[in-house]
């Protein structure tokens, strides 16, 4: 049904807005630590208010109820009745987490209230009921509200209709005769309240008789047509309650006088047309909350969750919010493309070779540029700023540093650096792990830092920038750096290394990327175990990226991640083996060398090694793995492409290197299936297909073959 689809779409928008609102609340709350800020509190309040309203409208009662308490607390803070304390901010941050969880549950189709929300909810109510410390300096000039205690959650609107004493209790079913005296103020029309319409509403409730009093109407020459000079007496017969009548006149209560009289019951006290006075809203009773049950936990603010706050669904997989500038740019480019096309089209009709050829060439160059720009523009649509990922870190670092009792200053740079949506999503968890590592193992305790002559506060820097066709993300800390001795010892202990192996400092550093490696004395629950650096590296290489670590013992470490700007396009090196051309991602290529025969060695009769600088690299004969007839089987007459993946380096033998170019990646498994050794395919300018090499699986295939042939030889 289209209607349900439309509603579902609107509810989706609500979820997205809620995510954004929760983000705004979180960053607003974090900024309150620096000092109470009127504007920030207002923003936070509005965000909560919006979420509450939307949740109620779209049927998410739990979220609405929960947010109501949050909103009430924020309201007190914004009008000055309650001061901003670190504790309140902490509880509100936890409330934001709980709300995130509830939104996620609602989004998944299973709306509910998780246990965490109960704890935080109870704490909120405690605070609301507890003593209030009014703000020292009133942050707003709002009139002091009479209400210092929370409003009851969603009461039926009827409770608000405390207009005047009730003459009679609701007469269920029985017919009544009401006399209503309606005396509007002269200004009634200025608010566009139309007596006629109100009377029509009354008419739908029963039998209505209307009597108008026009004595108040001034002489024609003095009449002010925008003023109301009439009043009415209305008689209504029907099974009508006073509440129903009050509802009809609800909007005009403040700019008219209304009196209700029930005439059918003898002895009912008349209710003269005194100006209707709204009885002050009854002091709302404190909402019944299960405080008793949660008392022990409520003693101190509940411990924040050690896991990262409920996953942020800003970066939602199924839809993208695109800035209008990007769309406008696209529209312009398509316009240019159409013009260029038509320009060239004209040549199809009678070209005069020679002069026209030059114009044709120029037109084609235009076209080529247009198409390239269009392509870049379209790809940019999927790009989002890395701030989406970086945004979780202020909170994370704050909580972790508290937990670890370390002082940390977080610096974020390059938050506007854009990268592909999917890359952004997938780099999130690895970054979190790296940051945790830095905090847990890298940065020292304040005491240790002072002892080694450093400042008490450690610095953790997250930096992102573009370089060529890649995005570089750096995680830098000025902590203890990597301890080579410890790493070597651990590696030897785990038999990851031969006892006599001699490694360069860089090689020792890279040992931490080996599976199961962890030098932590105790497995702290902060970084955990198992999700080691090897998984981080795997995640990064799966994205077509590259990670390396550089460190100076005692001074700190820098982890440098290189990621492709987009997953759809690759910076590729074309290469040829025999009659076949392949593309290899530039990111995996360290360098290409012309091998010197004296650098080539054969071990045990078949394993071929190439001495590259200080390393011995295995030679991977691409022609063997792919069963191609090469130009020559002699390594010395070919080229060796030194490639790296997962910390392993190989030298790939090819016949010739061709151009470097950007290629569009097309998958093989759409119509066929994954082929080991290949990452996909691309289409050349001439229309032919070139295959893209996948270095990690190539290396795996190679290792398997080598092992097999060793087995055979044995």
């Amino acid at each position, binding site marked *: 049904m289209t*209607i349900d689809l*439309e*509603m579902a*779409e*609107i*509810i989706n*928008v*609500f979820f997205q*807005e809620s995510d954004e609102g929760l983000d705004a609340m979180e960053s607003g709350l974090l900024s309150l630590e620096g000092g109470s800020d009127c504007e920030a509190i207002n*923003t936070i309040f*509005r965000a909560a*208010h*919006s979420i*509450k*309203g*939307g*949740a*109620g*409208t*779209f049927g998410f009662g739990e979220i*609405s109820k929960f947010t109501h308490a949050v909103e009430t607390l924020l309201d007190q803070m914004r009008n000055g009745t309650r001061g901003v304390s670190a504790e309140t901010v902490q509880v509100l941050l936890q409330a934001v987490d709980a709300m995130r969880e509830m939104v996620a549950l609602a989004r998944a189709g299973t709306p509910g209230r998780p246990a965490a929300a109960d704890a935080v909810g109870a704490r909120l109510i405690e605070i609301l009921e507890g003593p209030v410390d009014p703000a020292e300096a009133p942050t707003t000039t709002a009139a002091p509200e009479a209400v210092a205690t929370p*409003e009851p959650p*969603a*009461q039926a*609107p009827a409770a*608000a209709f405390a207009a005047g004493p009730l003459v009679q209790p609701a007469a269920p079913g029985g017919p009544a005769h009401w006399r209503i005296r309606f005396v509007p103020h002269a200004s009634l*029309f*200025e*608010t*566009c*309240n*139309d007596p006629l*319409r109100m009377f029509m*509403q009354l008419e739908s409730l029963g039998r209505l008789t209307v009597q108008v009093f026009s004595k108040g109407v001034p002489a024609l020459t003095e009449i002010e047509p*925008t003023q109301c000079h009439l009043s009415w007496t209305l008689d209504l017969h029907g099974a009508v309650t006073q509440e129903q009548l009050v509802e009809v006149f*609800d*909007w005009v209560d*403040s*700019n008219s006088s209304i009196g209700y009289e029930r005439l059918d019951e003898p002895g009912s006290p008349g209710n003269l047309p005194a100006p209707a006075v*709204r009885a002050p*809203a009854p002091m709302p009773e404190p909402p019944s909350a299960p405080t008793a049950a949660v008392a022990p936990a409520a003693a101190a603010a509940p411990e924040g969750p050690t896991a990262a706050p409920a996953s942020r669904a800003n970066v939602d997989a199924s839809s993208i919010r695109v800035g209008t500038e990007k769309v406008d740019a696209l529209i312009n480019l398509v316009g240019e493309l159409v013009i260029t096309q038509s320009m060239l089209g004209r040549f199809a009709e009678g070209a005069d070779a020679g002069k026209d050829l030059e114009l044709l060439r120029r037109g084609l160059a235009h076209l080529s540029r247009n198409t390239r720009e269009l392509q870049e523009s379209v790809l940019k649509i999927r790009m989002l700023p890395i701030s989406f990922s970086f945004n979780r870190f202020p909170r994370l670092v704050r909580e972790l540093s508290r937990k670890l009792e370390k002082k940390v200053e977080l610096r974020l740079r390059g938050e506007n650096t854009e990268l592909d949506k999917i890359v952004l999503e997938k780099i999130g968890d690895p970054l979190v792990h790296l940051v945790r590592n830095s905090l847990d193992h890298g940065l020292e305790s304040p005491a240790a830092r002072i002892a080694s002559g450093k400042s008490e506060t450690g610095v953790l820097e997250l930096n992102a920038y573009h370089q060529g066709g890649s995005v570089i993300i750096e995680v830098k800390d000025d902590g203890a750096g990597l301890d080579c001795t410890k790493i070597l010892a651990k590696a030897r202990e785990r038999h990851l290394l031969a006892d006599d192996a001699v490694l360069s400092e860089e090689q020792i550093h890279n040992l931490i990327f080996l599976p199961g490696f962890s030098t932590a004395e105790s497995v702290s629950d902060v970084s955990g175990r198992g999700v080691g650096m090897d998984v981080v590296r795997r995640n990064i290489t799966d994205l077509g990226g590259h990670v390396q670590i550089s460190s100076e013992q005692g001074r700190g470490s820098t982890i440098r991640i290189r990621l492709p700007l987009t997953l759809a396009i690759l910076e590729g090196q074309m290469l040829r083996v025999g009659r076949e051309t392949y593309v290899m991602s530039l990111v995996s290529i360290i360098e290409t060398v012309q091998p010197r025969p004296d650098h080539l060695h054969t071990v045990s009769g078949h394993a071929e090694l190439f001495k590259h600088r200080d390393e011995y690299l295995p030679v991977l004969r691409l022609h063997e793995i792919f069963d191609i007839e090469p130009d020559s089987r002699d390594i010395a007459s070919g080229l060796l492409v030194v490639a790296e993946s997962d910390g392993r380096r190989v030298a790939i033998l090819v016949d010739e290197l061709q151009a470097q170019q950007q290629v569009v990646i097309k998958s093989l498994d759409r119509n066929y299936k994954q082929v080991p050794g290949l990452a996909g395919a691309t289409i050349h300018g001439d229309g032919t297909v070139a295959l893209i090499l996948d270095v990690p699986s190539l290396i795996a295939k190679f290792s398997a073959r080598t092992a097999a042939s060793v087995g055979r030889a044995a």
Partner: protein
Amino acid sequence: MTATILTVDDSASMRQMVSFTLKRAGYTVVEAADGVEALNYARTSAVDLVLTDVNMPNMDGISLVRELRQLQAYKFVPMLMLTTESGQDKKMQGKAAGATGWLVKPFNPEKLLATIVKVL
């Protein structure tokens, strides 16, 4: 000639819900994301009804009503505020600014349409 309704709310989902409900009922709808946008629109185009949220950035609903009432074309256009039930004083402030009435949030589509019929 169908009636044109201007709906003002900083929440896109709320705007869309109101818009969707009203359009289905045959009204023409114009959306604005805050008071400033609404006012800019109103300066050059008239509508038959204004529905506005109260809590909005840049210009809140009550200020919007006040400003709109200054425009010749909007002196006698009914204006309804979308308010939460806790805002009793907001209702009064709204009336003082010139609002015709209000609609309490959260509301369902039926309530919205029934309320519109009271003024259109």
